[in-house]
């Protein structure tokens, strides 16, 4: 009996939390100082932008944006820097109360500081002195000008990309999981479909572009189809593997408990395959971004890839950079969202695998 009570005392929370234990503690004052340091680079960038003389002959345009009737691109750049400063102060406040988050924050301080300084340097070289080759490497303020000039248009293209991605990716993943289960479960399906999957899977999806464009009524559907194929392959492949690698003992346990086939598939094989399914999904995610942008550059009426292409024709490289920045933010957010979903679904693995 005493063993029971001993075990009971070792409650779960510490076990659940083990991965987050902190190594070194930082005093409140130290944390405050580091928070300031993390925004100091951006503050410096603002000062450089305001105080450094404009030596090269560059037109600093101004736009009427909302409440600002005459917003110069330098001011817009400063507002963006101010926004970053506020963002990091916000994160600092949010991290202040949690030991693990504090550590995360502190780890990134030098990097954020350096980014601020890099922006300042870029501003000087790109705008103030304009010593970088033009028009290929505009200064940061010039890139922000794209948003002042045609913000709504960029937004429209972003939405187009997002919609295309969502449709193609979700259908592709659903399709991939479905075929993966069939391949993994039925030896007959494995025999006939798996080789096809293996051969078609190595072909970059955009290679099908000419067919897709003739087979589908709209370019949107054609591109969605390409994204479906590129997402389908890794998801189907890994789902099938996950299903097939289910230990026999799990099926036997379930059968002795009275389970029939649906239980064996949906409550044993699929849960077991989930970690691999998610590996497939993140691979598919990366493929899908590539396919999305490439197909947009090859014949879509909209989207960020289209915007890049259209801007390049006019040598408006600052707009190309603007689109790239939007992509970076958008794709990171999508990846982050996927990561969070994965962590939630696979929470039973926490502490089990590194």
């Amino acid at each position, binding site marked *: 009996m005493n063993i029971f009570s001993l075990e009971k005392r070792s409650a779960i929370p510490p076990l659940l939390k083990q991965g987050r234990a902190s190594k070194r503690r930082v005093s409140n004052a130290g944390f405050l100082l580091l928070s300031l340091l993390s925004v100091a680079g951006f503050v410096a960038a603002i000062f450089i932008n305001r105080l450094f003389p404009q030596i090269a002959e560059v037109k600093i345009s101004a736009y009427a944006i909302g409440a600002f009737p005459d917003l110069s691109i330098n001011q817009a750049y400063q507002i963006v820097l101010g926004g970053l400063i506020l963002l990091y102060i916000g994160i600092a406040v949010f991290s202040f109360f949690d030991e693990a988050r504090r550590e995360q924050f502190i780890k990134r301080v030098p990097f954020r500081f350096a980014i601020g300084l890099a922006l300042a340097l870029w501003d000087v070289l790109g705008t103030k002195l304009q010593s970088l080759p033009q028009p290929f490497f505009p200064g940061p303020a010039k890139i922000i000008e794209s948003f002042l000039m045609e913000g709504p248009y960029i937004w429209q293209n972003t939405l187009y990309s997002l919609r295309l991605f969502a449709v193609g990716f979700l259908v592709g993943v659903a399709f991939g999981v479905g075929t993966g289960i069939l391949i993994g479960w039925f030896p007959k399906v494995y025999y006939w479909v798996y080789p096809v999957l293996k051969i078609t899977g190595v072909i970059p999806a955009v290679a099908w572009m000419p067919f897709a464009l003739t087979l589908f009524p709209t370019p949107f559907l054609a591109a969605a189809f390409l994204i479906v194929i590129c997402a389908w392959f890794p998801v189907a492949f890994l789902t099938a593997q996950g299903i097939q690698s289910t230990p026999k003992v799990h099926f036997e346990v379930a059968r002795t408990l009275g389970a029939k086939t649906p239980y064996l598939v949906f409550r044993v094989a699929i849960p*077991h395959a989930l970690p691999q399914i998610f590996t497939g999904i993140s691979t598919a995610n990366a493929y899908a971004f590539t396919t999305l942008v490439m197909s947009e550059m090859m014949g879509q009426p909209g989207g960020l890839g289209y915007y890049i292409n259209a801007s390049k024709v006019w040598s408006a490289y600052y707009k190309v950079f603007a689109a790239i920045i939007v992509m970076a933010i958008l794709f990171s957010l999508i990846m982050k969202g996927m990561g969070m979903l994965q962590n939630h679904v696979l929470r039973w693995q926490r502490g*089990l695998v590194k």
Partner: protein
Amino acid sequence: MSKDIVLSIKGVDRTYVDEDGGAVEALRGINLDIKRGEFVSIIGSSGCGKTTLLRLIAGLDAPEAGSIALEGEPITGTDPHRGYVFQQGSLFPWLTVEKNIASGLVARGVYREQKADVARYIELIGLQGFEKAYPHQISGGMAQRVAIARALINRPSALLLDEPMGALDSFTRADIQDKLLELWRKNATTMLLVTHVVDEAIYLSDRIVIMTPRPGKISEILDVKMEHPRHRGGPAFLSLRRDILEKLNLASAAPQPEYII
């Protein structure tokens, strides 16, 4: 055949084909009748066919010859009336303790009606407070108690246990043995336990089946006529133990550690 025979095994043979195509006679001519509510242990060296026999009874495998019947019904496949506890690592890692125990109810489609049983069985195995823990967060002993509860929640008429404590230290083992006795008395389940530990067999069983390998067959069946709780150091206990070790040809040499406790 008397009516209180729950499980009847007659002339069962099972031969495997090994990797080189050779035949391995895992079981030959097994005859065994088990009475309702009886606690029977099967003991024997590894490779003598204990797991094979248990899998045949569970319906996870089929014999080449002979018949196995539960309550007079020939066994044709798995059935929740025959619960099975595997040696280790058989919990579903993606389910919490609570959900693992409930999985028998879910598998039979009676979860909604019998949900309340889950908490009862968690209490029975003394794991309150660990309902939401995942298998990798609990100890091996706790995991085996969960596996036992998971099989018992289906209220099987026979529980088959294949070395469920094989991987546990002797303290945890003693602990689970007591738990098992308690559950056995409470539920009046017929128990069939495979073990290679002589003391465990004597401590728990009404009868001990001794098996010998190549071909796997029953060499002897011993009655244990001692009242519970049994004293592991008592004279009757020790003399029976010497008996069994002798039958296993281990008495003369220093007893091998795997057969003790």
